[in-house]
């Protein structure tokens, strides 16, 4: 199996692959890219082969995948475990609602999208500055991010009164904010409302672009810097890196990724409520990323889709197993993966494939040398 399709040929494809591949991302073989293309093609064809409900359901999972990417990026590559990525997800979702409801035109929704992503990103930048320049470290970062999410949860849950409104938009307290507009592309009053299959495609392509973009970033020198910070902060500082700044940048990008997910999520159900800041929801990204593999973007996405699909399925019960066992199974699965596949599913598989390949090459090499020795 050739590892490089056309390395060194200097072709456009070759240069592109150079940007996309590197030690920091899993999957760089031709086989991988063919498989990737097939998977993307399958995801594109998917809505044509299934019912509208499944498309809507899958859209929700895709929106959540941004949250997984966001955590995977900061935890897997820079070693910052945030238990509160949902905070930026939620801030963006609420911001999208507030701006979207107040400016109800198509332009308004576009503005809401931009504004919401900016809001989520700024929130992350602010918290990141506060923590990383304040010397908050490791586990303390984890708990601090969780506490921030819980503060938002407590606060948003009590915004029930009519005095808690921004313009037209009622924050709604525990009941949440309703009438959030659907994502729309367009100018003025007319625009293309992204619903059903369109929403799915918009999500899929944004996710795809984000994934490839993150691969490029991780394989750039900045990605190397992130990994250096993850491996050894003190040492990295002695090479002249401004470690708090690097972490701030990473955390901010992570916030932006979560914010994009939040916008899609709010627009998916036309609704957002404070439970996005709750501990149950806050734990989910950690679950997805741990299971998928924290050093694998694709693993994080895959695990999100698989686990969420499973959770939905289990809520109806499977065969003789009643729905009451759903949470037991999810919790047990999580324990099992963490105990027996500590790196996560995808990196473990990747290692396995590597090992098999090496073994096979070794065998074929040994046969080649004996057989072809006369030559």
């Amino acid at each position, binding site marked *: 199996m050739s590892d490089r399709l056309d390395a060194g040929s200097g072709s456009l494809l070759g240069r592109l692959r150079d940007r996309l591949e590197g030690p920091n991302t899993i999957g760089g073989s031709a086989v991988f890219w063919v498989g990737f293309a097939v998977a993307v093609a399958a995801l594109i064809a998917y809505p044509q082969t299934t*019912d*509208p*409900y*499944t498309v*809507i*359901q899958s859209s*929700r999972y895709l929106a959540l995948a941004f949250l997984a990417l966001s955590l995977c990026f900061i935890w897997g590559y820079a070693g910052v475990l945030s238990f509160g990525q949902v905070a930026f997800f939620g801030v963006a979702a609420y911001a999208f609602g507030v701006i979207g409801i107040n400016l109800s035109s198509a332009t308004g929704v576009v503005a809401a999208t931009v504004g919401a992503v900016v809001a989520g990103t700024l929130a992350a930048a602010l918290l990141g500055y506060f923590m990383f320049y304040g010397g908050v470290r490791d586990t303390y970062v984890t708990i601090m991010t969780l506490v921030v999410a819980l503060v938002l949860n*407590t606060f948003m*849950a*009590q915004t*029930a*009164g*009519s005095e808690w409104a921004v313009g037209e938009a009622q924050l*709604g*307290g*525990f*009941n*949440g904010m*309703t*009438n959030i507009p659907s994502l729309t592309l367009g100018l003025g009053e007319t625009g293309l409302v992204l619903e059903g299959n369109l929403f799915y495609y918009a999500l899929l392509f944004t996710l795809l672009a984000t994934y490839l973009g993150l691969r490029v970033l991780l394989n750039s020198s900045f990605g190397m810097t992130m990994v250096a910070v993850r491996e050894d902060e003190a040492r990295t500082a002695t090479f002249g890196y401004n470690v708090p700044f690097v972490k701030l940048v990473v955390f901010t990008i992570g916030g932006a990724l979560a914010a994009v997910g939040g916008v899609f999520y709010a627009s998916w*159900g*036309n*609704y957002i*409520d404070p*439970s996005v800041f709750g501990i*149950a*929801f806050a734990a989910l990204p950690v679950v997805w990323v741990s299971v998928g593999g924290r050093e694998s973007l694709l693993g994080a996405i895959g695990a999100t889709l698989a686990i969420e699909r499973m*959770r*939905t399925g289990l*809520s*109806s*019960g499977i065969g003789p197993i009643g*729905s*009451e066992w*759903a*949470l037991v199974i999810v919790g047990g699965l999580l324990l099992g993966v963490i105990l027996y596949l500590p790196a996560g599913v995808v990196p473990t598989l990747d290692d396995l494939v590597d090992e098999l390949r090496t073994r096979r090459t070794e065998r074929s090499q040994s046969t080649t040398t004996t057989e072809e020795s006369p030559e």
Partner: protein
Amino acid sequence: MTHESIPRRSVLASGATALGISVAGCSGGSGSGGGGGPTVGILEDRSGNFQLNGTSKWQATRLALEEINENGGLLGEEIEIVDPDPQSDNSRYQELTEQLILQDDVDALWAGYSSATREAIRPIINENEQLYFYTTQYEGGVCDNTIFPVGATARQQLGIVTPYLADEFGDDIYIIAADYNFGQLSGDWVNVLAQENGYNIVGEEYIPLDETDFSSVINRIQSEDPDFIMSMLVGANHENFYDQRATNDLENIPIGTSTAMAQGHEHIRYDPPALTNVYAGVSYMEELGDLRDGENFVDAFYERWPDANYLNQEAQNNYFSVYLWADAVEEAGTFDQQEVISVLEEGRDISAPSGDLTLDGATHHMEHEMRVARADENHEISFTNNERIGPSFLREEVEGGDGCDLREEDKTTQYVPSDVYDV
């Protein structure tokens, strides 16, 4: 006190349905159920935060549907039940609502305990014009084309209990309520009642849903020394208030409530005297039994669900509203949701375990038999002050007195007390 005014036809029809005698006969029309027979969706929490209330609702809904199936089904067809557990998670509710509507093509949906859940799935309900029964007692005011909020509203519950307590104990009221829409709007309703009747609100506070410590609340109540307390606390965390009240010997200050006892059966789960002198405005409690002749809903319930904890007010709403729907389907002769809604909007009477009730077609709300349930020092329940109360807020007060009439115009809105009153 309007026991006698029940149109005969309806009683016969619903009675007949309950007995499994299909009045309309087999029309063979499978309604909107995609491909197969009729399908009903139940989304009630059996795990998570609201499982205590949700489980009972789920059990009663299943009981009603199974009874109908045992008695020959509806329009000659067996009703299929789809009932995944939404786990008290609103985003799971949204997902499952989409699934039940789009994939299982349900002909009617019973879903959700909290107002937050209802609001979370309302956009989906509206988009798909799904016939939806929301059965929890609630703040009131929802006026929505395809939604039938059949539980008693705050105006109905508080309207029965507040004046009763004021007459008995005096005019000084201290309001404590859960800090979300339901609690705040319920508080507004107590204020409305106070304005109308000249009561005096001496204190009013709204408590976060996750609070469990009520010592400072109790100190403030002691400081104001009201004649009675109106409590619209919600959920397992807030129940601790009743225990702390007993610890602090506050049972001499009566409590009026729309939330305690009838839903979370605190009078059974708590040792006396925690709930002593709690007066709940209710439409139903298990202790009421079955007011219909020759029927025993409570026995049937425990026979079907021997492990059940309690048959709560909401469960009864689920139970009778299934029959209400079945009745309407029989009359419409089809499961087609628009036609069933049209039949329901004609207004219907139904004989429920809690009494003979009437659905108000214009507002989609029920005229309930309301009563005051009092727990004594042994937590024995007694009922007093029976009164039939209709959905007067939606019918007569909103829109400058014109009311909301869903037969006349399409609406997907919720009115709040401040639309009409100065609160």
